[in-house]
C-alpha cells in the first residue's frame, strides 16, 4: 500500500527537480500523443522544439519572445516572494508603453542619443506609476492588491486604446487606430545582425543578475523573503510590511513598464491598440515555473517562448491547429503542479502487516 504523507521539511532536491520532471513528462506525453494520432513522434518533436530555433534568426526570435517574459517575471517574483500578489503586469506593461512611446511621439524625428534612454526611463516610470495605485490603496486602506492590480489592466488597455484612436493617431493613417512609426532614434538597436533581437534582451539579462543580487545579497531582499515565509516572524523582527508592499509592486511595475517600452520601441515600432499578446499574464506562469528564482525564470521564459514558437512551427510543418500550443502549456503546468506536490509530500510504502508498521520510506 502506498500512502502520501507530509515531509518533515520541504525537499530541496524536489524543488529543483520538479520543473525538470514536468518538462520530461510533457515531452513524453507529446510523443505518445503524436504517436496515437499517427504522426511520427520524431517529426512532431522536431517541429516543436528544433525547427523554431535551428537557425540564427530563430534563436533571435526566441530571445525577442523571452525578453519581456523574463523582465516581467523577475520583477513579479520579487513581490511574490513576500506575498505581494501583483497580477497587474499587463497593465503596468501598457502604462510603460504609453509613457515611453508617448515620449517617442513627442520627440518624433528628433535625432538625439538621449531620446532612447529617456524613453526607457519613461517606461519604468509609467509602470511604477501604474503599480503605485494598488500599492497606495493596499497600504492606506488595506485593499486587496490582486483585485486592484488586475482591474487596472483593463483601465490601462482602454487608456492606450483612447490615445491611439484620437490624440496620438497617425495623421497620415486614414483614421486607423495606430500611432506614427517611431523615428530611428527612438528604436532599440538590434544586437544580433540579421535578427530582430534587440537591446531589450540585454536589459532582461541585466534584470536577471540584479534580481539575483537583490534576492540573495541584499537585506531588503532577505526581509521580503522572511515576510513571505512567515509574516508574523517578520513583524516580530520589526520589518516594515508597508515598505515591502511598495517595493514589491514598484519593482514589478518598473520591470513590466520597461518590458512594454521594449515591445513598442523594438519589434512593434509604434503604438497600437494592443501592444502585448498577454505577456503580463504569461509572466506569472513563468515566475512560478522558474521557482521565483532569477535563474529559474531565465530558463522558464526560454521554455515558454519555445512553446509559443513551436506552436507556430507545428502549424506550418504539421498543419496542427494553434490550440496545440495551449494544450502543451496546460500539460506542462499540470505536471508541474503534480510534481510540486512532492516538495512537501512523499510517498510512503506501507506493508499491511502490523509487525512491520515502521515501514520503509521511499523518498
Amino acid at each position, binding site marked *: 500500500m502506498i500512502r502520501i504523507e507530509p515531509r518533515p521539511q520541504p525537499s530541496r532536491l524536489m524543488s529543483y527537480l520538479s520543473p525538470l520532471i514536468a518538462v520530461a513528462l510533457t515531452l513524453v506525453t507529446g510523443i505518445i500523443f503524436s504517436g*496515437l494520432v499517427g504522426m511520427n513522434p520524431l517529426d512532431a518533436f522536431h517541429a516543436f522544439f528544433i525547427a523554431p530555433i535551428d537557425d540564427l534568426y530563430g534563436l533571435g526570435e526566441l530571445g525577442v519572445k523571452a525578453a519581456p517574459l523574463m523582465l516581467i517575471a523577475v520583477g513579479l517574483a520579487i513581490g511574490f516572494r513576500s506575498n505581494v500578489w501583483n497580477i497587474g503586469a499587463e497593465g503596468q506593461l501598457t502604462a510603460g508603453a504609453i509613457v515611453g512611446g508617448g515620449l517617442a511621439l513627442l520627440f518624433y524625428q528628433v535625432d538625439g542619443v538621449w531620446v532612447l534612454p529617456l524613453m526607457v526611463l519613461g517606461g519604468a516610470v509609467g509602470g511604477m506609476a501604474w503599480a503605485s495605485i494598488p500599492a497606495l490603496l493596499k497600504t492606506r486602506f488595506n485593499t486587496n492588491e490582486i483585485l486592484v492590480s488586475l482591474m487596472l489592466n483593463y483601465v490601462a488597455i482602454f487608456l492606450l486604446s483612447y490615445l491611439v484612436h484620437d490624440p496620438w493617431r497617425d495623421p497620415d493613417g486614414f483614421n486607423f487606430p495606430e500611432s506614427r512609426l517611431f523615428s530611428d532614434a527612438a528604436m532599440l538597436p538590434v544586437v544580433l545582425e540579421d535578427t530582430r533581437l534587440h537591446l531589450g534582451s540585454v536589459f532582461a539579462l541585466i534584470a536577471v543578475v540584479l534580481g539575483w543580487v537583490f534576492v540573495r545579497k541584499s537585506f531588503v531582499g532577505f526581509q521580503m523573503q522572511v515576510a513571505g515565509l512567515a509574516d508574523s516572524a517578520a513583524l516580530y523582527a520589526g520589518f516594515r510590511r508597508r515598505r515591502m508592499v511598495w517595493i514589491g509592486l514598484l519593482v514589478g511595475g518598473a520591470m513590466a513598464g520597461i518590458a512594454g517600452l521594449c515591445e513598442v520601441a523594438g519589434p512593434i515600432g509604434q503604438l497600437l491598440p494592443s501592444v502585448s*499578446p498577454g505577456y503580463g499574464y504569461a509572466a506569472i506562469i513563468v515566475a512560478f515555473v522558474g521557482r521565483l528564482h532569477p535563474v529559474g525564470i531565465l530558463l522558464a521564459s526560454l521554455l515558454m517562448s519555445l512553446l509559443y514558437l513551436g506552436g507556430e512551427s507545428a502549424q506550418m510543418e504539421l498543419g496542427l491547429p494553434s490550440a496545440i500550443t495551449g494544450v502543451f502549456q496546460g500539460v506542462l503546468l499540470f505536471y508541474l503542479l503534480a510534481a510540486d506536490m512532492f516538495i512537501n509530500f512523499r510517498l510512503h510504502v506501507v506493508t499491511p502487516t502490523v509487525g512491520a508498521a515502521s515501514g520503509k520510506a521511499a523518498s
Partner: protein
Amino acid sequence: MKSITIRKILLAAATGFMTAFTSLAASAADPFKIGFVYVSPIGDAGWTFQHDQGRLEMEGKLGDKVETKYIESVPEGGEAERVIRQFASDGYGLVFTTSFGYMNPTIKVAKRFPEVIFEHATGYKSAKNVGTYVARFYEGRYLAGIVAGSMTKSNVAGYVAAFPIPEVLRGINAFTLGMRSVNPEATVKVIWVNSWFDPGREREAADVLIAQGADVVTHHTDSTAVVQAAEEKDGVWSVGYHSDMSKYGPTSHLTAATHHWGSFYTKIAQDVLAGTWKSENIWWGMKEGMIDIAPLNSVVPAEAAARVEEAKKQIIDGSMHPFQGPINDQDGKEAVAAGAVMTDDELSKMEWYVEGVEGKLPK
C-alpha cells in the same frame, strides 16, 4: 487559459493529421507554395473562416500546382512579423496577410524578401511586391439593411461593432442607409466592443441592445455570439456577417452580408504563376462576386425580397451606389449632395455617422 475538452483535442489532432496527410500527397509535383496568415481561429463561421474557404477554393481550382499552408490566431503587432517572415524564408512565393494589423509587419518583411509577393487585406500601404485587397463590404450591408428595415417593428436596430475605423463605419452607415431606404423611421444603436473576436463581450453587447429596444441585431465582429443572442429571444431578428450564420439562428437569422475571397485568391495565384502579377490596390464588390448576401429567411415578405433583388441588380450594373446623395450626417447636415456619389478616396477615410445612427462616434 482556454478550457480544452478532450473532444476538441481529438478533433484538432484529427484535423492536423488530415492536413499533414493531404500536404504529403501533394508534395510530389513540387508545387508553388502559398502561405496564409489568419488573425483568429478558423472556426466554422466568420472573417477567418471565409478567408480559409477562399484558400480551399483556390486549392480546388489550381489543384497540385499550388500547396497552401496557414497559421491561425496570429496576434497583430510584433508577433506577426515573425510568422510572415517564416513563410518568406521557407520558400513560399506568395503570402496573404489577412488582417489590417499585419500591414507594417508585411511591409517590413517584404523589404527583406523582394522576390516574394505579398497581398495584404484591408490596409493602405503597398510596395513593389505588396498588393492590397479589400471588398466593398458596404454593398452587402446596404442590402442587409433593406431586409432589417422591412422586418423591424420597434424601428430600432442594434449593431455590435469592433473598432471605429473607416471600414466598420462604412458598414454601419450603409446598413443604416439601407434600412432607412425602406423605413425612414429606423434608427441604429451601436455598441463598440474594441475587439475583433470576443464572444463574451459581443454577447453582452447584443443583450444590452435588445434590452434597449432593438429587434434586429447585427455585428461587425468575428464570432456568432450576436446571432445566437437573437435566437434565444422572442421577436428579435439577426443579420449575420462574414458568413451565412443561419445555422446559429435557424429561426431568427434574416440574412447575412457575406465575403467570398476564392476567385480573388485564385486569380492572384494564377497571375503570380504566369508572371503577370503586379502590385495593385484591389477593391472588389458584388459585381466581381467578392460580396454577396446569404439566402433570405422565409419570413421575409416577398415584397422586401424583391426590393433587395432590385437593389442588388442596380449595385451590380452601377446604376445605384449605397453612398449616393442626398445623404445627411448624424446632425442633419448635408454630407453628400443630391446626385453626387462618394469617391473611393472619401469612402476610405470615412469617419462620420449618417443620419439615423444614434450615439456619439468615439474618437
